[in-house]
């Protein structure tokens, strides 16, 4: 039912579909983590994914970013197929060369940053554009410095990750993803490893990106933030998309019992 509604919405919508993952199934041994779910994201759209821990949010993001291979399903960026089902319904991936190109369309920001500790801040940003995208060093560095300035990290170019606070490290990680000039960004709980007083600076950066019409998919437990920034909220539970829609509906006025139950835990955050 919901799936159909969503498809309907998308065909009526004139916005360009940038990313879609359809009918993804993923199991680890006997444990089915994703039960045939689909997500499409339009250009400029900000989608927040919420849900209890263990509901498959990270696995969905990891399938989307090809850190995990789907058992079954299709994965498309800008109309280019990264994976599709063969006749037996098993996902087959495109050639390594195609995948490498498609990987250039998106960036991923991890919960625990995963900065390269042996590279300076600047080199964390420039290494992939120079050696993966083969872009010119001077141009890449100029762009990286500009990105760092935008992230409020001016003067940190030559620092090493360990010399920075968690919030600064996560901003470097966001800048590193942006330095690749991706069409969209995925965030997997970007503030969960941070002290509460540092989450604000990350949320501010993401908010700014949203204003600049960056396409983003954000897994988050920050309900107030999701409601403010997201165009659409997806609530996941047990490997299913339980509810999906505008944030004012899903977060402030959920239809499903499970969504209500989940959100009641956050009521002390001043949600209602």
């Amino acid at each position: 039912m919901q799936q159909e509604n969503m498809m309907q919405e998308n065909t009526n919508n004139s916005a360009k579909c940038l990313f879609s993952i359809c009918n993804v199934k993923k199991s680890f041994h006997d444990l089915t983590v994703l039960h045939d779910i689909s997500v499409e994201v339009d250009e400029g759209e900000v989608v927040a994914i919420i849900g209890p821990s263990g509901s498959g949010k990270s696995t969905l993001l990891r399938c989307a970013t090809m850190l995990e291979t789907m058992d079954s399903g299709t994965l498309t960026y800008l109309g280019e197929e990264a994976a599709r089902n063969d006749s037996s319904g098993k996902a087959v991936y495109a050639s390594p060369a195609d995948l490498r190109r498609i990987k250039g369309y998106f960036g991923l920001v991890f919960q625990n940053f995963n900065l390269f500790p042996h590279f300076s801040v600047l080199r964390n940003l420039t290494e992939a554009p120079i050696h993966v995208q083969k872009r010119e060093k001077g141009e890449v560095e100029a762009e990286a410095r500009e990105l760092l300035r935008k992230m409020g990290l001016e003067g940190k170019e030559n620092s090493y990750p360990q010399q920075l606070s968690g919030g600064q490290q996560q901003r470097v990680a966001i800048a590193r993803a942006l330095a690749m000039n991706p069409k969209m960004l995925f965030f997997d709980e970007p503030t969960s490893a941070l002290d509460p007083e540092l989450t604000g600076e990350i949320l501010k950066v993401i908010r700014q990106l949203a204003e600049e019409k960056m396409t983003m998919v954000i897994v988050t437990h920050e309900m107030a933030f999701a409601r403010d920034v997201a165009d659409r909220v997806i609530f996941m539970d047990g490997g299913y998309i339980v509810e999906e829609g505008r944030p004012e509906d899903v977060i402030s006025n959920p239809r499903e019992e499970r969504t209500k139950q989940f959100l009641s835990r956050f009521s002390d955050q001043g949600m209602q």
Partner: protein
Amino acid sequence: MGFMSIVQQIIGGFGTTVFIFFFTLLFSMPLGILFALARMSRFKPLNLLMQVCISILRGTPLMLQLIVVFFMPYYVFGIKLTTSWRVYAALIGFSVNYAAYFGEIFRAGIQAVPVGQHEAAEVLGFTKAQTFWKIVFPQMVKRVVPPVTNEVITLVKDTSMAFAIAYAEMFTMAKQVAAAQSNIMPLFVAGVFYYVFNIVVAWIMGKVEKSLDYFQ
């Protein structure tokens, strides 16, 4: 024979000791990386073969391995052994043996690099080779400096095993002089040489460790 001439003879052997030491390091480190990669290979036969090789190299005396390498051409291929072969046999024996130890150290170092580093590199589009050389290798190097230092110091002393194939390094020379003079003083002189050599090695490795302090 005076003290100075004893020292002189020992210095002659010391040159050979340094020679074995230096070239063993030069060959065994890259070979150790190959061993580590083979040992971690997802291709089961290679993985298993490497496991057996490393187990044998670590589980049998180095002295025996040197002898096997030295006599192998003669017993297996019927080739007459030459004097220069002695040098090559020593370097092969030492290098392969130390590669086994370094390989296990490198493997542990590689496996200690968090999986998140691989994932970040993968998402950024680095190839497997780029990920290894740019991301994993430098972090591995930092982790392995202390255990590698131990092996390097052991190698300084292990060079004396070359006597097993009558390769006259410092300890062999010292023993010969000591026997000829009925005096153990030359052995002590050799001991001083080993010790000073190792102090230099430890100092250099300390510098290396320090130079990697800039990241955690």
